[in-house]
């Protein structure tokens, strides 16, 4: 149990740090004004998805980091979970936005619904930071199931 | 119905749902009537009363969803409405809805209803939450003490709602003196309880 906690602490520490930095980067990119694309990641530069979303992502990272010590304690673990939930919220919204944008055909196209390849291409990279963080933070969902309310 | 100790049992045509805010009265109301009352997970959703009907054993009940209150002292609009509803239906059956996780709080209102001499049934709602929180409420003992039917139920899933409907006819009046003596245990076999015949739950 102890070693598991230590391993989880280290993992959450790394993810939390990455989340915090990406969130801050989003805010900086908004302040800078130009969109930034690095590899499969794109950082939006508008106020809503950039600054506001970035603020939430940064909060999420800070929450995760604040819960890293003694992660076996439910009070601490809850902060990590809350941070993960915030990441899920932002990522979920980004993915929902992609879905909504790829269902209808483009403005000039005669059809109403997008073709299947067109629909799928709507999900091509690059992605927003929160979406990239999503798979890593899902580990925490497994931990919720595993630890639940029993092991505290 | 026939042998109620208080003698003045309601004619059963009007049923008032009363209880603290956010104990699930509106959800129960929807279960009972099929009418759509607005249900939300925060206190104070029902600020006005809602009416609906329930037809059961060829008898029509008028169900009234009273806004949630902590007492009958007319401190805000919701309480004023609740008092007005009670006064207008003195011969109705009152279903006092208690939150099983917080029965102490709901019982204050319960006693005010008892003291006003209404014929009543207690619905012990949110048994599921109580179970999750590992709170066990002894409904049988509660019924014994109070001398009125007590139905454990979970309105959100519909569990126990049927029992409640069946027992509406067995609603009866109780009095504080009787409760006191039964509580101290020296009158466990008084006729007051067996007088409440037919609930099948005593």
């Amino acid at each position: 149990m102890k070693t598991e906690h230590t391993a989880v602490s280290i993992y959450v520490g790394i993810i939390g740090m990455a989340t915090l930095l990406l969130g801050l980067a989003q805010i900086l990119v908004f302040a800078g004004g130009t969109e930034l694309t690095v590899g499969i990641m794109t950082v939006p530069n508008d106020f809503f998805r950039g600054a506001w979303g970035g603020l939430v992502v940064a909060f999420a990272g800070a929450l995760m980091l604040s819960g890293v010590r003694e992660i076996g304690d439910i009070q601490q673990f809850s902060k990590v979970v809350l941070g993960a939930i915030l990441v899920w919220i932002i990522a979920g919204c980004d993915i929902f936005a992609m879905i909504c944008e790829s269902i209808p055909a483009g403005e000039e196209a005669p059809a109403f619904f997008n073709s299947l390849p067109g629909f799928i291409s709507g999900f091509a990279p690059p992605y927003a930071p929160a979406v990239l963080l999503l798979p890593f933070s899902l580990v925490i969902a497994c931990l919720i199931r595993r630890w639940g309310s029993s092991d505290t | 119905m026939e042998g109620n100790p208080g003698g003045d049992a309601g004619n059963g045509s009007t049923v008032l749902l009363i209880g603290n805010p956010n104990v699930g009265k509106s959800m129960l109301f929807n279960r009972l009537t099929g009418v759509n009352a607005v249900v939300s997970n925060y206190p104070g959703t029902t600020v006005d009363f809602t009416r609906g009907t329930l037809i059961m054993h060829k008898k029509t009940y008028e169900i009234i969803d009273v806004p949630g209150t902590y007492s009958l002292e007319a401190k805000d609009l919701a309480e004023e409405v609740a008092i007005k509803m009670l006064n207008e239906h003195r011969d109705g059956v009152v279903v006092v809805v208690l939150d099983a996780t917080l029965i102490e709080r709901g019982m204050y209102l319960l006693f005010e209803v008892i003291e006003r001499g209404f014929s009543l049934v207690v619905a012990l709602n949110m048994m599921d939450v109580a179970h999750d929180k590992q709170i066990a409420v002894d409904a049988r003992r509660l019924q014994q003490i109070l001398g009125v039917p007590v139905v454990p139920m979970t309105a959100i899933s519909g569990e126990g709602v049927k029992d409640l409907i069946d027992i509406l006819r067995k609603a009866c009046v109780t009095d504080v003196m009787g409760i006191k003596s039964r509580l101290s245990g020296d009158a466990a076999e008084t006729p007051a309880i067996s007088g409440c015949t037919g609930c099948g739950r005593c």
Partner: protein
Amino acid sequence: MGLSEDERWALIDEISRQTVKSGGYKQTLGDVLGELTVKPLTGIPVAIGVLYAFWSIFGSFAGALMTDGFMVKFFDRYLLPWIQGMWPDPGTWLYFIFVGDPVADNCFEAFGVLTSGLFVAIGVVLPAVLIFYLMMTVLEDSGYLPRLAVLMDTFLHKIGLHGYAIVPTILGLGCNVPAVTATRILETRKQRFIMMTLLAIFVPCGAQIGIMLKAIPDTIGWVFLYLLIGYGIFGFVLNKVIPGSNPEILIDVPPYHLPAWENVAKKMWNRTKGFLKEAVPFVLFGVLIVNLLYLGGVIQWLSDALAPLFVYWFGVPKETTGPLIAAFLRKDLAVAQLAVIPMTAYQMISSVVLVSIYFPCVATFVVMLKEGWKELVAAVGVLICVVFLYGGLIHLIGILLGVA
């Protein structure tokens, strides 16, 4: 037979001692999360995140998917040309009322009952209201709303309200009508009056938000900022001016639980049905009235008469008179009308803010009347002051920033 309060509690203690057993209760993850969402340090970030989600989903579904994705195409490319083609004689007044501008190529500009009226009601506002109600219901049923109330309590106390004022405020973002009824959860007359007045003036309804998102997507943030600041300022002033008390209340926080989907579906259906029954006829009727007033020259006359006020005091073009009249019937309609008047960004922001804060729509007016005519008269008095002061203030800010 009356018991005293102490006797009652003594009895209750004894009964619960005999009937309730709470076995070794341990805090669950849900409980701790519940606490965390109420504490300011952790709760405010969550609130900011929830607000983000609310807005993001609203924009994606109502804006990108429904309105821009399907409705605009359907109305502009199929319905509009079809109606323009089949309705006889573009020169007649019937054509003007029902179809509008014969050369318009989109439903915003045509402004006929069957073109813009239907487009605004069905194409823009219906999806907005639908998704709003869905999210509202989830917030309500999950148990987040009362937690938000606890969080907001400190701030809302400064403007004479308490945490629960957040409930009518958020409801008002959907529609002001149920929001006015919800003010009854506030305890004193003073609180109810402040809340009702702020609702009527500063809280834009879902229909209006939907159309703003479509018509003025770039400046909507400013409109919200102005409305939010106004809500704060005038709440504060009203709290100082109006006599009465502003008592603390205990906020009861229910446990989090997953919303029961049938309850969500039922509520959604009820609310949407209400919208279709009440709002859609109002929109169509509103277009009809405004068009008749245009034909009769009433609007022309009014805008000439009011021109000095609009141009010099508020700094907006005199053409905004027409939309302001329509605003009394439906605010969404008014914003749609404003969107096609050529204006600078500043003028657009201030005229949309004006439309929002100026008179509540007819439906809200009627429910406010039900809550008491004295309150309504007082609220209208406050409203007139606010429109002049705040409209002038925004103009002043614009002048100082050099954009007006």
